[in-house]
């Protein structure tokens, strides 16, 4: 009987083993959703013949899956939409360093891990957006100034459970320190026009409709409203809004990346690196820009026209690892300030 079991297990192992070793695949755990990554993966397969396999879910749960699967995890590449999560993955020990001249040349230093554990693939900016007519651009200056009582009841922003807001606050912690950030948060939260709810676009719609005068959102949400069908409510809303780039005389506007790292267990390490390198080619970078209106991480790749119209800006050059190391502190401060 035990022999039979061992025999069965061995056969099973061989079958499963060969299936997993099948040449030319790369397995991806992605927090970037399917619609925003699959087209690029298909292009990659077309070019290289390497098959891609994809699971998408929240970064937190996926990271937990990676950790639990340990050295046998089938995943080769972990993709997130936030640098903080990449940093967390690094701290959890599930990423391995990659040395690639192509990647180092394409991705500017603030947007990749100093040891090469992760690389930014596209940039997102989170500036202030205001309702034209109800706010003058000279009334605005910095994120910090939004705590001023003149904005009482005039600001829309989504929940503090959202990773983009957590990263924004983490960047403020890095710039101003813990105590100043808490003070700022208390004033800022008092200025909310309503209890935070909905996504970024909902904040923009609310600002356009007059529920508030200022919204904070990632630029690609506004860009997508601009590219909506002319005459549709979203398109009209977008036209009522204007982008303001804060902190231009200081550290610059808050930016974040979507990015990826090769996993420690990666059974197809070389393919994963090839995929990463593909994702920073001009072709792939232009796709991020054109299809999702993100900023290409690679300098010199043109922005989409909609995004160009929002203006050039100075970006905060903080190494994005800081977003990860400050994340849980940021969440605690937001809790304390009563940002739901």
């Amino acid at each position: 009987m035990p022999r039979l079991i061992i025999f069965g297990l061995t056969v099973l192992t061989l079958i499963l083993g060969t299936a997993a070793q099948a040449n030319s695949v790369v397995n991806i755990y992605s927090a970037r959703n399917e619609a925003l990554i699959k087209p690029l993966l298909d292009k990659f397969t077309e070019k290289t013949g390497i098959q891609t396999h994809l699971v998408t879910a929240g970064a937190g749960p996926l990271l937990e899956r990676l950790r639990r699967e340990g050295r046998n995890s089938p995943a080769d590449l972990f993709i997130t939409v936030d640098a903080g999560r990449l940093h967390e993955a690094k701290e959890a020990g599930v990423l391995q360093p990659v040395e690639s001249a192509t990647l180092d040349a394409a991705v500017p230093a603030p947007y990749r891990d100093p040891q090469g554990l992760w690389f930014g693939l596209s940039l997102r900016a989170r500036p202030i957006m205001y309702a034209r007519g109800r706010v003058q651009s000279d009334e605005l200056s910095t994120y910090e100034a939004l705590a001023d009582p003149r904005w009482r009841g005039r600001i829309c922003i989504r929940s503090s459970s959202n990773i983009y807001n957590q990263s924004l606050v983490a960047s403020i912690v890095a710039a101003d320190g813990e105590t100043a950030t808490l003070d700022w948060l208390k004033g800022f939260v008092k200025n909310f026009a309503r209890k935070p709810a909905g996504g970024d676009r909902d904040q923009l719609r609310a600002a356009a409709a007059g529920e508030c005068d200022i919204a904070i959102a990632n630029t690609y949400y506004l860009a997508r409203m601009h590219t909506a069908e002319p005459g549709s409510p979203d398109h009209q809303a977008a036209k009522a809004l204007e982008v303001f780039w804060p902190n231009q005389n200081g550290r610059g506007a808050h930016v974040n990346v979507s990015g990826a790292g090769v996993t420690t267990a990666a059974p197809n390490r070389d393919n994963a690196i090839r995929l990463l390198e593909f994702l920073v080619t001009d072709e792939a970078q232009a796709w991020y820009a054109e299809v999702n209106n993100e900023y290409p991480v690679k300098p010199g790749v043109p922005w989409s026209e909609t995004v160009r119209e929002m203006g050039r800006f100075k970006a905060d050059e903080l190494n994005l690892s800081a977003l990860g190391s400050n994340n849980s502190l940021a969440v605690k401060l937001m809790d304390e300030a009563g940002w739901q």
Partner: protein
Amino acid sequence: MSNRSALTDQIHPRALSVVLVATLVSLPVIVVLSFVFHPAGEVWRHLAHTVLPLYVRNSVVLMLGVAVGTLGLGVTTAWLTTMCTFPGRRAFEWVLLLPLAIPAYIIAYTYTGMLDFAGPVQTFLRESFTWSRDDYWFPEIRSLGGAIVMFSLVLYPYVYLLARSAFLEQSPYAIDVSRTLGCSTWSSFFRVSLPAARPAIIAGLSLALMETLADFGTVQYFGVPTFTTGIFRTWFGLGDSGAAAQLAVVLLTFVFILLAAERWSRKRASFYHVGNRSRPLGIYQLTSGKAWLAFSVCTVTVAFGFLVPAVQLSVWALKTAAEMVDASFFKLLANTLGLAAATAFIAVLLALYLAYGRRAHGTVPVRIAVRLAGMGYAVPGIVIALGVMLPFAWLDNAVDGWLRSHFNVSSGLLLSGTLVALMLAYQVRFLALSLQTVESGLAKITPVIDEAGRSLGCKASELARRVHVPMLRGSLLTAALLVFVDVMKELPATLVLRPFDFNTLAVRAYELATDERLEDASTAALSIVAAGLVPVIVLSLSIARSRYRETLEIRYAPLPNPVGQQG
């Protein structure tokens, strides 16, 4: 049972196997709960100091609100469609179940699209009356109150379903008797029908409330911090699994209170109705005014719970379906239906096994184990997913390690990241549904019936085949369909546990909706609703027929002399 000693009963192999199976199903929840022992002092203090009171308040208010809402809608409509005659009653019997097919997060998305400040309704009001923000008051849809309304609209069918079958089982004579004893319509409802249906109503209510507690998508979208969003945030935002598990424990105490209340209510009142029901229901012939009122109550319930969101989704889907429906879409559909059907089938088998085990060997360990196995229904899907992931990954890695050290081969992960893991998670999450339904079906088979069967010479297997199967058929179908619909709607566990390249309709709808592309999400959302409609309609047809059929079957089944109430 009295002639057997408690000891032999406890170590009965069947009892043991029931305990084992039940424990396997509760294992994921237990695994997560064991995290409680991780040190989490500092974060826990932070939570208690800042957000915990809010979580408690919101969760409690949400439960109370949903209880009032689902009871109000569910019991009223069940009573009207069973006991009264009014125009459209036959159609309403099944139409009232339709909202069950709509996931709570999807109804939340659609109503928000219509009713929030920037939506068409308020925009129309502002433009018609040239109002600005401070000129008028409009209820905020994304609020605790809004969440209560959303949950009530889609979860009342649980109460309706169980209340209705309880009303159907009541002997019309009991009501006749109460009327001849001088009860008015109202007092015979409150003093006879309602108390007799109470166990079923509370069972339905506890399902609705457990689903409410476990919900993540709706409360997250509405910005209402509850235990479930708190667990998520503590785990992934504060990065503290210990504190998250402690929150889960607090959540589970709510569930235990619910379950205890449900048990208690059943114990207090186990009614066994015996007697033939020889005339159709619809005792109260409603005339003009009252008939219209009954008609309107049912219409409004269905309109808000089903029609309005379904129409809104259809309007969006018409715009985007051409782009969204391609070859991969049919694969989504096939994946979703296959997964839901397989899971439902297994859930019914498991429920039968456990329920019969408990019935035959109702010792304390068996009862506790079975009770725990139904606990997962109130546990957020993500918590269950992690609870499944942990032991599977451990097992896989242990097998792999052993093979590596003894044979120098690697097995990789055998179970993690497969459909097996996902389907176990569904069992953990939804077994309560099939278990409750099967148990309440089994409760109808009174001990007297078994004894009568045996005394007439039936062996156990014969008893099961000739008496139990026909009497349980309705409950089994209900159990399977409830699980089927819920699996189709499930999200968090599906997302993170699924194998590579395996998508479902719920995953597709969710990904598009969280990317704030509601219109694109509508095709997948509508397909969930449509696919959910099929079982819901089957369910309602079977309910409509069951009364008639049961009457026939009971006549042929070996029956004892009519006895009044027992227990």
